[in-house]
């Protein structure tokens, strides 16, 4: 019915019709799929949740004399970076912690400062201390470096998240009689609360459940700047059971995303601390869905009451990989503030900010309307539900020791 090229022509002429993932739901209810599919060109989705598989790589520039940080050590504001690359390329992960952080020795650990916080400070334009040690070579003689550095002075600063935008997620509860501290937040004993983590009806992969328009090369809003889908994300698991509307009932698809950190903004990349768990980065992602035909629109117009998630116990089942759901709830129920589990009313909390996700949808909508953001054609698809691609557990095998 429509092509991405035709939509881009409309964007350039200022004639494009863009609605948010929330607006499209009401619109379809009022006017029907057929009419709205003709009228609307793009639906903008958004999500603003913590993602531990976030990080950034940097080329910090060559010092005089040269140093080969590769194979040595490197810290940014005391947080260790990965150095197994060439001379001055480093990677900083969101969950990295200073060596002297007590972690969970004083339980529950606070994790006040980690890689995620360094990334947010870099994006804010703050100077960061770079310390490096090296073994020294003939061509890279220097052994030590200790300097302040600013993102604007780096050659490259690139956010590269190997997994993001989970298509659906668990609702976490605690069946034990002690509080537990998880990546899903603090869970009070005996079903004291139920935490979830999704923007539901605004979340990109829930609005294009079969990845018809999202693929490798899709241009997105990333951390307030422009980014791209680089690959399917780690743990991408498209082959899970789905509801009739095509939406998976448990965590399924993911994307890996990449973009220029220098263009990003501290409001959309937030360093956070999960009590008793670790440091992590909240990442703002926005994704445009081109309304190619009625099928794309129908799926983009699915609302919270038709998106279901599983309630999972994080005291015994999750840590021990014991499968089992305590029941299924939809996002409309989760957003009401309470759900029923085992005939008990349990209060719900979201780790993923719905109001911020809404702001991202609006922001991306305004970029497209102004003509600042055109859509890209994916260069390759993500593995789909019928691809046979799935998520595997680790099979541990005994290590045979060689005789001396």
């Amino acid at each position, binding site marked *: 019915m429509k092509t991405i090229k035709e939509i881009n022509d409309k964007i350039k002429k200022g004639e494009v019709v863009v609605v948010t993932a929330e607006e499209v739901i009401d619109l379809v209810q009022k006017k029907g799929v057929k009419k709205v599919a003709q009228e609307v060109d793009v639906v903008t989705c958004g999500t603003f949740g913590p993602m531990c598989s976030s990080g950034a790589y940097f080329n910090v520039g060559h010092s005089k004399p040269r140093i080969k940080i590769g194979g040595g050590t490197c810290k940014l504001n005391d947080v260790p970076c990965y150095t197994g690359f060439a001379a001055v390329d480093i990677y900083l992960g969101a969950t990295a912690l200073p060596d002297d952080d007590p972690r969970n020795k004083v339980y*529950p650990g606070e994790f006040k400062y980690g890689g995620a916080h360094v990334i947010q400070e870099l994006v804010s334009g703050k100077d960061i201390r770079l310390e490096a040690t090296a073994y020294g070579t003939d061509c890279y003689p220097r052994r030590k470096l200790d300097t302040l550095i600013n993102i604007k002075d780096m050659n490259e600063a690139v956010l590269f998240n190997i997994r993001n935008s989970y298509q659906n997620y668990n609702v976490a509860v605690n069946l034990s009689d002690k509080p537990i501290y998880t990546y899903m*937040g603090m869970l*009070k004993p005996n079903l004291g*609360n139920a935490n979830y983590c999704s923007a539901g009806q605004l979340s990109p992969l829930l609005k294009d459940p079969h990845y018809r328009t999202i693929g490798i090369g899709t241009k997105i809003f990333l951390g307030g700047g422009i980014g791209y889908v680089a690959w399917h994300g780690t743990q991408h698991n498209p082959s899970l059971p789905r509801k009739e509307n095509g939406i998976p009932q448990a965590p399924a698809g993911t994307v890996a995303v990449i973009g220029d950190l220098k263009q990003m903004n501290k409001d959309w990349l937030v360093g956070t601390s999960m009590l008793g768990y670790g440091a992590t980065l909240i990442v703002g992602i926005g994704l445009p869905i081109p309304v190619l035909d009625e099928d794309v629109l129908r799926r983009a117009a699915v609302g919270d009451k038709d998106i279901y998630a599983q309630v999972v116990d994080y005291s015994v089942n999750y840590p021990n990989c014991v499968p089992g759901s305590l029941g299924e709830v939809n996002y409309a129920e989760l957003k009401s503030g309470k759900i029923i589990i085992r005939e008990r009313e349990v209060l719900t909390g979201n780790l993923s*900010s719905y*109001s911020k996700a809404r702001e991202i949808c609006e922001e991306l909508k305004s970029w497209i309307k102004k003509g600042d953001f055109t859509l890209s054609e994916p260069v390759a698809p993500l593995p789909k539900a019928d691809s046979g691609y799935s998520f595997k557990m680790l099979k541990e095998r005994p290590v045979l020791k060689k005789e001396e």
Partner: protein
Amino acid sequence: MVSKRIVLHFPHRLVNQPIVFKLVKEYDLQFNILKAFVTPEEEGLMVLELSGKRDNFDKGVEYLKSCGVKMQPLSQDVVRNEEKCTNCGVCVPICPTEALVVDKETRKVKFDNKKCIACELCVKICPPRAMEVHF
């Protein structure tokens, strides 16, 4: 009747004295201790809900001041850093008094200082650490 939630700071020299007892005995006030501890500087800190007749309440407050107890309303104690808060809402089911609730329309988290009893449960579980304690 007046009922207020107040934070009392007891200087070192008063930490051993039965001041709250006098509020009950002499001024006929009711109290509910929400929190109490002695800081490393040996200052005593107590969060009280204090209620009674208006004139008794005022006299009781005068008595506290005359002893050298510093007072402030509780609402000043837990403060939300608006710049840091992302309005995710993970604090909402943790708050025991519904001082933190999600607005159904805006989906933003509203913080009502008047309902806050300064239990501080939200402070450490807030992912961007937006809830701050100011004494």
